[in-house]
């Protein structure tokens, strides 16, 4: 009889114990998928949301801009760089933008804030969170007009509404103070109070004129890529395509280091939890296999007496742990699939518990918790649990082969 067949039959000597152990592995699959899937889904949403808040997944900007942003640092040839970027595979869009600080004033009050100057023709809700979050009015129509889109809390603080005027004041390329009047065309509400309370969107060509920028100038090019997981390789590809020592090509991890730190910390916590769960599952498997080995001490003695070598006995028990792993993973897939389908398509809405303003590092976190699994995560979970089960079998397998047959035969 082949070792695999024998190991399979050994598994079924105590059916209930086998099912319980396999279920614990299956439960491990469910927990791992849930933890990993929720994290992957929320990280992807946070990263993608953050990418539509101005900087993109990858940003091209003048050298030193990231450390000390200033309106006198600018790209002179944004349009031609953009054309190069749009021809690259994996780039969803690339948008020239001017970002800066401004004083925003109405007839009643003034506040400190920030602006992003955009071309409304190129922008869309999918690429721009502020346009996506418009709750009143609409985005300004031309890139050279005097329209402005304001955050809901800005409007509230300045006591202005649609059609009302505001004045924004900033510094131009020469460091001179410049001002411009704009009329509110729309109000957005992202749900992140610090953003809604400080941000305005302006037409890019109008801002270029005020700042003394050339017609192709911008402070940065914001690049949205199709798959945020490939950001490092996309950044490197873009860097080699642009090949300009005066420009910096940075990923969101570099431009938004706070968000990157939060995600890294969260991932670390998640891994610790998964490790603890894995250890619990491993302890269960180890216990089952060890009991199963100890119950068969005499039988193993007989096997060795009739000529089975300790190494073959070791392989037999390892084979049993492999079967446990296969059975557990199949059970895991069976119990996890309906859960995954539900959580991926519908999810659980926690907005009642956390409210609508739930953000981290200025990035909105969706209170609708869903699960999204990537191929590499699925492979990682299945491989990890398979390896864990196999490793749990090593000590029982070693023990099986190391009891001298004469001692084993004395066992009842």
């Amino acid at each position: 009889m082949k070792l695999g067949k024998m190991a399979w039959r050994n598994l079924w000597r105590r059916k209930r114990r086998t099912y319980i152990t396999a279920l614990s592995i299956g439960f491990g699959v469910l927990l791992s998928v849930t933890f990993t899937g929720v994290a992957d889904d929320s990280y992807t949403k946070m990263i993608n949301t953050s990418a539509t808040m101005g900087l993109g997944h990858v940003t091209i900007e003048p050298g030193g801009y990231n450390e000390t942003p200033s309106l006198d640092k600018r790209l002179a040839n944004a349009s031609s760089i953009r054309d190069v970027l749009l021809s690259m595979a994996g780039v969803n869009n690339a948008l020239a933008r001017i970002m800066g600080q401004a004083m925003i004033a109405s007839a009643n009050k003034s506040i400190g804030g920030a602006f992003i100057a955009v071309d409304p023709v190129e922008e869309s809700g999918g690429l721009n969170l502020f346009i996506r979050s418009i709750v009143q009015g609409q985005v300004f129509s031309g890139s050279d007009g005097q329209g402005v889109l304001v955050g809901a809390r800005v409007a509230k603080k300045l006591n202005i509404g649609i059609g009302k005027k505001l004045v924004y004041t900033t510094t131009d390329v020469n460091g001179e103070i410049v001002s411009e009047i704009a009329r509110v065309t729309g109000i957005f509400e992202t749900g992140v109070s610090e953003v809604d309370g400080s941000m305005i969107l302006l037409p890019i060509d109008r801002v270029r004129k005020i700042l003394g920028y050339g017609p192709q100038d911008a402070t940065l090019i914001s690049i949205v890529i199709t798959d945020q997981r490939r950001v490092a390789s996309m950044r490197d590809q873009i860097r080699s395509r642009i090949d300009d020592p005066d420009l910096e090509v940075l990923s969101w991890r570099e431009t938004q280091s706070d968000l990157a730190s939060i995600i890294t910390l969260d991932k670390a916590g998640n891994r610790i939890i998964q490790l603890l769960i894995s250890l619990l599952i491993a302890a269960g498997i180890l216990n089952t296999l060890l009991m199963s080995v100890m119950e068969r001490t005499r039988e193993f003695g007989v096997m060795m007496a009739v000529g089975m070598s300790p190494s073959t006995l070791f392989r037999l028990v390892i084979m049993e742990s492999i079967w446990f792993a296969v059975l557990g993973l199949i059970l895991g897939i069976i119990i996890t699939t309906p859960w995954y389908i539900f959580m991926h398509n519908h999810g659980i809405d926690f907005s009642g518990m956390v409210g609508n303003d739930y953000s981290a590092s200025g990035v909105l976190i969706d209170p609708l918790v869903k699960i999204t699994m990537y191929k590499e995560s699925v492979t990682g979970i299945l491989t990890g649990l398979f390896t864990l089960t196999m490793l749990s079998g090593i000590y029982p397998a070693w023990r099986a082969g190391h009891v001298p047959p004469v001692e084993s035969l004395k066992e009842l």
Partner: protein
Amino acid sequence: MDDQSIVRLEDASKYYRQGEVDVRAVDGLSFEIHKGDFTALCGPSGSGKTTVLNLIGGLDVPTGGRVYLEGQDIGLLSRSKISAIRRDRIGFVFQAYNLIPVMTAYENAAFVLTLQCVPERECRERVMSVLRDVGLDGLEHRRPDEMSGGQQQRVAIARAIVTRPAIVLADEPTANVDSANADSLLRLMERLNHESAITFLFSTHDQRVMDRAHRIIRLHDGKMESDEVLT
């Protein structure tokens, strides 16, 4: 050692400690077993019968003296070499049958051949032939829990002889079966010894075994009391 000698013990001893007491399970034992022998090791419980079988079978190592199997000093061999010798040259029959419960009669009998990597067709022919020899024709698909004690011991004998070993070591083979089955098993082993020249060494205190043995070695407190060749 002559050509016909399969087993030779030279002043073999096995001492071990049990609590505060030194036990001399085998104490300076010397004898030879020849090809075709049908020998019984007799003696009361604790006389060292099973220990002698364990030493010859390489399941235990002597604390003194030497044990040779087909000219090889078992005490000098590595674990893997001893495993190979047990697999290829020795057949074991235990008092409590010790079949593998998840295997059928056929699979139990074929177990050692599988370890030897004998081709499947040859394995099948040899196992079926041996099962016929031990009177289990038609029962090859039964698992141990579906067979009587006598039938299980026949499977154990089939497992022991299917590899054509140099010697079969049988530890109280009739102790767990009724007298009818014991007689039948003894006739079977006698026939295998007679027709196939398989060497048997029994440990026993069953008079029926002693009555059929060609030679009786009597042990007492680990020492040889007598060595009697019967005609």
